């Protein structure tokens, strides 16, 4: 288990780094997919297979396909690369380091609340994570679920409005 965690971690972090450093957006996108897969791996490690599946379907599947589509559509991989400002980069690095140090310090020094929930891994495995998520989603979080549907509708309208050539 631990070994898997490290593998996933290395993949995730590496691919994340690649995403932001690659010059070609298409390459970045592919690394991003890799990263998503690594994260899905984490979900599996955490006994949330349903989420892992969702991760692969929604992110790696839907969203990334969309991204790649747009990259292709705009032919972005061909156009000359956009230069990064060195000055900007310098400040960004400093900020990145500080931000990371801060977050890391917080995480290392802090601790979570004592586990109090009833949904132990054993229970989840017993009932099945999909069923539990389903139950929650359609009872306790029924309303956010509904809102999410409207949100998606609005997003569709938005995408349609933006992408349309002319009204």
């Amino acid at each position: 288990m631990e070994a898997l965690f490290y593998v996933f971690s290395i993949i995730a972090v590496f691919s994340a780094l690649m995403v932001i450093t690659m010059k070609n957006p298409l390459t970045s996108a592919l690394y991003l997919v890799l990263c998503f897969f690594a994260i899905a791996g984490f979900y599996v490690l955490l006994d949330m297979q349903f989420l892992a599946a969702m991760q692969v379907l929604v992110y790696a599947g839907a969203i990334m396909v969309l991204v790649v589509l747009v990259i292709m559509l705009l032919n972005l991989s061909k156009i000359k690369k956009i230069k990064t400002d060195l000055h900007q980069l310098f400040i960004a690095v400093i900020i990145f380091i500080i931000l990371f140090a801060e977050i890391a310090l917080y995480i290392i020094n802090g601790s979570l609340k004592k586990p109090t929930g009833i949904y132990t891994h054993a229970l989840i495995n017993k009932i099945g994570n999909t069923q539990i998520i389903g139950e929650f989603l359609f009872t306790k979080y029924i309303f956010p679920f509904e809102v999410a549907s409207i949100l998606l509708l609005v997003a569709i309208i938005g995408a349609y409005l933006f992408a349309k050539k002319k009204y």
Partner: protein
Amino acid sequence: MSINAYLIVAGVIFCIGAFGVLIRKNLIIIFMSLELMFNAANLGLVAVSGYLNLIDGDIFVIFVMVVAAAEAAIALGIAVAFYREKGTVDIDKANELKL
């Protein structure tokens, strides 16, 4: 595996995402960096949820995914619109609005 390790990984990915937003000028890559940040948060949520033996965090992840999808739609829409107008997705070209 300790929960902190998960959170550290989440933090690393989150920071990388933020770094990406800071340094890249390609709108698409910026968007992808943003997705990285969201994913880091998702990872954190799932890990915490698992640690606390709760489910709410996992549900949250689903909603984040939904939102991410919606944002993806908007982002790419905007990218296309922007590209149509400027012929590029360099955000430095978005410099009309300033004092």
